[in-house]
């Protein structure tokens, strides 16, 4: 399974996202030390489970879903973790 799929299955299982986009940015980091072992990814995750949580707590939920592949398959993950309302009305976020 490719690494985007590895991330996707874990985030879908843990967060039941309304919207999930995962971008493989590994090519941007080719040659950089950490890139040899794992990839760089960016994720936009829209989930009800982020309601009432700080950014820190949201990111921890995301990382918790990926503990078996991070570090390892995934070297770095840039995260945008939004509730459905924040995703629909970005100005109010």
């Amino acid at each position: 399974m490719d690494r985007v799929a590895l991330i996707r299955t874990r985030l879908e299982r843990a967060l039941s996202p309304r919207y999930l986009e995962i971008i493989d940015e590994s090519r941007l980091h080719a040659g950089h030390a950490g890139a040899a072992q794992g990839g760089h990814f960016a994720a936009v995750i829209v989930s009800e489970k982020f309601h009432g949580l700080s950014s820190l707590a949201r990111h921890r939920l995301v990382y918790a879903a990926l503990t078996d592949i991070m570090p390892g398959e995934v070297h770095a993950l840039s995260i945008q973790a939004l509730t459905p309302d924040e995703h629909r009305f970005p100005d109010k976020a």
Partner: protein
Amino acid sequence: MDVIEQIKATISENPVVIFMKGTPDFPQCGFSMRTAQALKACNVDFAYVDVLANPEIRAGLPSVSNWPTFPQVFVGGDLIGGCDITLEMFQKGELQILIKQAVSGAR
């Protein structure tokens, strides 16, 4: 002092500290570079630890902070986050306020 105690002391003794890859002037990773730039732009002295030069700290910090990646920024003894959250707070003007409070509270 073991490495876990050393990490906890570093976090509690410095109002603002970043654990990063490289140094603020010679960052070795784009995420560390952008995060250190945001701290520099707050115009307050901050401490840093280069985790590439300190592999024991690199291995030990994630279990102390419950955060898997670097950089990690601590203000007033608390983890505020990595690159994404630090930059988001800087862009909203929240980081500058939080840091100034932590630095003046420490004096």
